[in-house]
């Protein structure tokens, strides 16, 4: 492989360099242990780990998933082993792989976020934080921080004040003006954005006449939400100068390129991991040949190439 071939998938997310733009999305990959049975995790551009909270959390009652056309609903409820276990067991285990970790963090109060951010950002393999201000499945915290630009900005600022690593903010699509939230967190010092989290949804069982999910509503993910993600990234990326990790229904190398054209600088694969555990390395392999077919040398050249119509600009 020539240097150029090796470098054609490299991307730069602000100060963070990735060998390729593909990472599993937070919440869809645990802490990597399960998928490491299928392939070497070093192949990934990065890993976004399961949202970590100060204390361990069990999450919501079951059923926690329901199928929908071209997608799924989930209401896991941020189940995780807590900060201490992640620092002592999960991150050191992940350190055996040559792959940067993006630590997704969540909390019920600003203090919770700050506490987790300060500690987890000192772990040697954590390359960036991802502020989860968009989980639709928890009563306190999560989405409550992601729907008001002022609160989102305050939280970003507080976390930036203690973090040793760049801070990405994961935005919720469940807002009327996503550009307002995006620009507010950029002004507050965010180093990048992750877009999008799941869309609020619900399904009702005809037999029981009750919602299928024990939580009632849940987060819709999968190919069904891809056009929403593309539209939001297209819009936001033209109003901010920080990089965007795009996500929402990606299943193929073609989907990845579409996210880049919309304005993303890297991508995260979520639900598709559940369908095909090999999806991330498959897409990484396919990107090489797709770039060949498209006559594109470096994938980062594609970021924002879809903007020429400019109609998304307000």
């Amino acid at each position, binding site marked *: 492989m020539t240097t150029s071939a090796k470098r054609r998938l490299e991307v730069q997310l602000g100060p963070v360099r990735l060998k390729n733009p593909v990472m599993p999305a937070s919440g869809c990959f645990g802490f990597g242990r399960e998928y490491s049975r299928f392939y070497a995790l070093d192949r990934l551009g990065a890993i976004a780990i399961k949202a970590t909270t100060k204390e361990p959390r069990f999450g919501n009652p079951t059923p926690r998933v329901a199928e929908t056309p071209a997608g799924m609903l989930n209401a896991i409820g941020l189940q995780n082993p807590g900060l201490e276990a992640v620092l002592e067991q999960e991150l050191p285990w992940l350190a055996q792989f040559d792959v940067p970790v993006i630590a997704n963090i969540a909390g019920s109060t600003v203090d919770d976020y700050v506490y987790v951010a300060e500690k987890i950002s000192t772990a040697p393999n954590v390359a960036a934080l991802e502020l989860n201000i968009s989980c639709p499945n928890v009563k306190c915290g999560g989405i409550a921080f992601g729907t008001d630009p002022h609160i989102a900005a305050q939280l970003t600022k507080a976390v930036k004040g203690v973090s040793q690593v760049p801070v990405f903010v994961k935005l919720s699509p469940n807002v009327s003006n996503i550009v307002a939230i995006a620009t507010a967190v950029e002004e507050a010092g965010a180093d990048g954005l992750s877009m999008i989290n799941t869309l609020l949804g619900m399904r009702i069982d005809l037999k029981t006449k009750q919602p299928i999910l024990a939580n009632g509503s849940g987060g819709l993910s*999968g190919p069904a939400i891809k056009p929403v993600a593309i539209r939001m990234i297209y819009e936001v990326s033209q109003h901010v100068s920080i990089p965007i990790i795009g996500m929402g229904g990606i299943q193929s190398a073609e989907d990845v390129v579409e996210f880049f054209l919309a304005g993303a600088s890297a991508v995260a694969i979520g639900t598709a991991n559940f369908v095909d555990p090999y999806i991330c390395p498959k897409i990484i392999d396919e990107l090489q040949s797709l770039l060949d077919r498209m006559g594109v040398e470096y994938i980062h050249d594609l970021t924002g190439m879809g903007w020429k119509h400019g109609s998304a600009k307000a």
Partner: protein
Amino acid sequence: MSETFTQPMMNRPGVPQVSLLTVTSNSPVARQVYRMTLKGDGVQAMVEPGQFVHIKCGSSASPLLRRPLSICDVDRKKRELTIIYRVEGEGTRYLSTLQSEDMVDVLGPLGNGFPLGNRDKADRVLIVGGGVGVPPLYYLSKCLSKRGARVTHILGFNSQEDSFLTDDFHQLGETYVTTMDGSLGHKGIVTDIMAHWPPESWQAVYACGPLPMLKAIEQHMAGAYQTEVYLSLERRMGCGIGACLACVCHTPDSAISYKKVCTDGPVFKLGEVIL
């Protein structure tokens, strides 16, 4: 899908893998219930009774998620796997349309199956199944019978039209059938038959079926501490490999301790999880 993509850990027994298997037969065996046989090299990895496979139903994005289906029988010489499924939704309806020579994308084997322990001809073993919980018990009974254990089966169905595999179980050992409407065997539920023996009569009890049935068995076996009791659970799943945490259940230990049905189970020892 990339044609050149290779799976680095192919064909290690017990290690899950994605394989394309060929349908060799697929036909109804009861009302809305089908038996499908699948053939291919991937079958060599399917070893434990009680494990399951996660099947992609179609090649499009809808239905998106795989469907967990228990392994009913394995013939490693013929490289053939049998599953029995009830048509309930979009995914299983798709499966019911497949014909000989069609290909199916199968992830497996998944989960921990029924421990066979040191069961031998000195042992009396009870196997209890209900509805579509019956299929994985067939391969279990075959494995136990091979070791010489004396196996008794109790199979519960809603009615005769819903019953299947009863003759196959008869060939492996004493078999009792119950139906809710009395159209076949005893009218009633499986625990009616279990009540004929003191719970301590068995060295081991293995069960798979609907939750109320498992709860009734749990209650029936509560004081029989010498008997090993294993229950196979069913839960809605996302990934099937332990990453998504959709299928968790509580354990008696604490409010935050849990087990995943897909990877810690689907088979649990009685008392290991809260039903």
